[in-house]
């Protein structure tokens, strides 16, 4: 007789899950016992549940499938809270399965008991505390269905230990019974026609593409739309890699650290088409001053995003694949060929006029951070490479300097801004795409939050290359304190050489490289990328370097500050 734990694994197998990430513990022991008794699913043993959660996110982002994480009750489950919140804000499809104390102990403050469905209530699409063993197959079927339909996101299934142990003859249901879950499936033809007409009349249109486009698997439809009507594309941090970045119609990344030409394109356009994007404050700057003259066409699968922050003149709610395909078809009938050419010429002119800049520094000075990203870009151009990042200055430089032509090759924490996301996300991405080279661009602050997962990378044979932009400080905080707090530096110094990152990497069984001079950079990166093992390249860079351009918090996007900044920038 099989039990509830077996039913969990058979359900995951039925959903086509090939990898799960997790750590065992008391309340989830029966599921781990079922793993040991045999399954087609690979389990990647993380060193911290937060790592397991971010690995599942990295897996989901790289593959376009659902990431799955296991954790035990109590602290195991609470350690998953950060990845769940991260997946919530970035709409990453995630199924988290946690063990819970035995049913008869729930509510008694039992050992390792915590109300994880309660704790995660505001950051999941839905969650289940399984009440009986018979529920397990239907609940998991529903969990996978909810995670991937409509706007993607995390769900949580909490299973008491006695229910995992209870006998059950497994049968997986064919249909999902969720009468209250009805995400939009069809496209509103009249709205699409209206959108096509507004776009056809536009002189200065811009496609403002977010992560929703990648979740919708609609990159081919986007490319066709842009090429059909000659529409320039800007991609947000979450939308990066949704449109080939060496394509002549790609005009960068809007927002707080986006290039001037990208922000000018967004803010001076006459028709703004938001595609799976949500007018996040990091993109818009001061909302009331954002894209002041633009008619907004908003395409999204989530109706609640329409009008949430910016009024949509033409809302189109529906799955983006058919929405974009329909829009392309309608637009093909009404668009005038070449009508956007003067606007594209203007954008090209701005791009040439306001390139990304940084101070090269004098001979003998410390290495600047930007050349690290430039070298990485040169060495990986054209290859099958997936980048992940932590959060901070290095993340913004990665956005600016790494050009991603293939979908799902830039994986980062956008909404929650989770420091430490990069290394575990890279391990997860490697599990999803073993044939790709996976590079984590990390900061020294981020690195120290999740570097224990390097050992997971080594032992699970999921090699990644960590390019550490080590400025010996919490760089983005340093930048804000420098620019907006009168250079009163407060608790930002980490020091370049402690820990000795290369030695730490070696201690974890990885290769370690230290780069202190520009001349050493390329050789170290080349060797790390070629060695086929997990490697850390510690690039010690100038902490004084700021990330520009920058839209100061609360300022209008058109008021962005370029390199080098003046002294009196209002906060």
């Amino acid at each position: 007789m099989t039990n509830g734990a077996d039913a969990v694994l058979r359900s995951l197998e039925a959903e086509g899950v090939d990898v799960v990430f997790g750590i065992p513990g008391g309340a989830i022991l029966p599921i781990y016992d079922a793993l040991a008794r045999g399954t087609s699913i690979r389990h990647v043993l993380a060193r911290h549940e937060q790592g397991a959660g971010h690995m599942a996110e990295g897996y989901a982002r790289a593959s376009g499938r659902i990431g799955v994480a296991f954790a035990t009750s109590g602290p195991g489950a609470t350690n998953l809270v950060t990845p769940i919140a991260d997946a919530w804000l970035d709409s990453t499809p995630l199924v988290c399965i946690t063990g819970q104390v035995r049913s008869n102990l729930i509510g008694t403050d039992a050992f390792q008991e915590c109300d994880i469905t309660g704790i995660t209530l505001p950051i999941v699409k839905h969650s289940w505390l399984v009440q009986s063993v018979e529920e397990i197959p239907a609940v998991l079927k529903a969990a996978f269905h909810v995670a991937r339909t409509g706007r993607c996101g995390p769900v949580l299934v909490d299973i008491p230990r006695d229910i995992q142990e209870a006998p059950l003859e497994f049968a997986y249901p064919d249909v999902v019974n969720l009468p209250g879950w009805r995400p939009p499936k069809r496209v509103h033809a009249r709205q699409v026609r209206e959108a096509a007409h507004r776009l056809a009349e536009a002189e200065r249109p811009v496609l403002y593409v977010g992560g929703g486009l990648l979740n919708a698997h609609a990159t081919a439809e986007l490319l066709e739309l842009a090429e059909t009507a000659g529409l320039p594309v800007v991609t947000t941090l979450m939308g990066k890699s949704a449109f080939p970045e060496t394509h002549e119609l790609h005009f960068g990344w809007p927002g707080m650290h986006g290039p001037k030409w990208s922000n000018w394109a967004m803010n001076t356009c006459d028709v703004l088409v938001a595609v799976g994007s949500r007018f996040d404050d990091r993109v818009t700057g001061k909302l009331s001053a954002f894209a002041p003259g633009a008619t907004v066409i908003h395409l999204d699968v989530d109706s609640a995003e329409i009008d949430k922050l910016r009024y949509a003149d033409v809302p189109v709610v529906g799955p983006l694949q058919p929405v974009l395909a329909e829009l392309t078809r309608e637009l093909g009938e009404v668009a005038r060929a070449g009508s956007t050419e003067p606007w594209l010429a203007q954008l090209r002119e701005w791009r040439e006029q306001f390139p990304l800049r940084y101070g090269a520094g004098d001979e003998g000075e410390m290495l600047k951070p930007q050349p690290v990203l430039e070298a990485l870009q040169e060495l990986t151009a054209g290859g099958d490479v997936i980048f992940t990042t932590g959060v901070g200055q290095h993340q913004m430089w990665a956005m600016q300097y790494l050009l991603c032509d293939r979908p799902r090759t830039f994986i980062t924490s956008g909404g929650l801004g989770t420091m430490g996301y990069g290394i575990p996300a890279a391990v997860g991405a490697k599990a999803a795409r073993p044939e790709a080279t996976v590079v984590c661009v990390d900061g020294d602050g981020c690195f120290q939050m999740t570097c224990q997962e390097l050992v997971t990378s080594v032992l699970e044979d999921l090699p990644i290359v960590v390019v550490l932009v080590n400025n010996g400080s919490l760089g983005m905080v340093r930048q804000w304190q420098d620019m907006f707090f009168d250079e009163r530096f407060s608790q930002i110094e980490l020091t370049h050489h402690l820990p000795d990152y290369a030695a730490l990497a070696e201690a974890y069984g990885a290769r370690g490289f230290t780069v202190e001079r520009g001349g050493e950079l390329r050789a170290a990166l080349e060797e790390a990328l070629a060695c086929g093992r997990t490697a850390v390249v510690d690039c010690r860079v100038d902490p004084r370097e700021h990330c520009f351009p920058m839209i100061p918090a609360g300022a209008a996007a058109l008021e962005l500050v370029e390199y080098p900044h003046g002294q009196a920038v209002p906060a």
Partner: protein
Amino acid sequence: MKHTLSVLVENRPGALARVVGMFRRRSFNIDSLAVGPTERRDVSRITLRVDCGEHALSQIEKQIHKLVDVLRVNELPADESVERELALINVTAPPSRRAELLALAEAFRARVADLGPEAIVFEIVGAPKEVDAFEELVRPHGIKELVRTGRVGLARAAAPVPDGRPQYVLR
């Protein structure tokens, strides 16, 4: 501007917490809340009174609609629905004031739910405004305790049953 929202939810553990949690998380306020069974055993109705503008109301409706346990959400417009509320009011009533209080109750069709030597517990059911009016009239006599259910409502008998999906109109 005050609005009444009627939300049908699947009768599952946590369904109410999810609806209420959405309000807290997104900084919307609830004026009153009433929960109870419906014509279907597996479905409960939550009636919410909220004070917000049209933009916030639309956000509230759409965010509630996304909750997996929610079957239907719709506004009950004042002129197209029936709304009722029940109050129990324990009023100080020495023998000398009883006649006056009973006359007031008579005028408002409030009932005496319980009678003590020095107090009366009145029960009034009516449109929320009527309950307000009765409460104000007995207040000078001394309200010892009071409880109101919060309003419940239904669309008028002649109205079609709404499907509760957010509507998108061409602008």
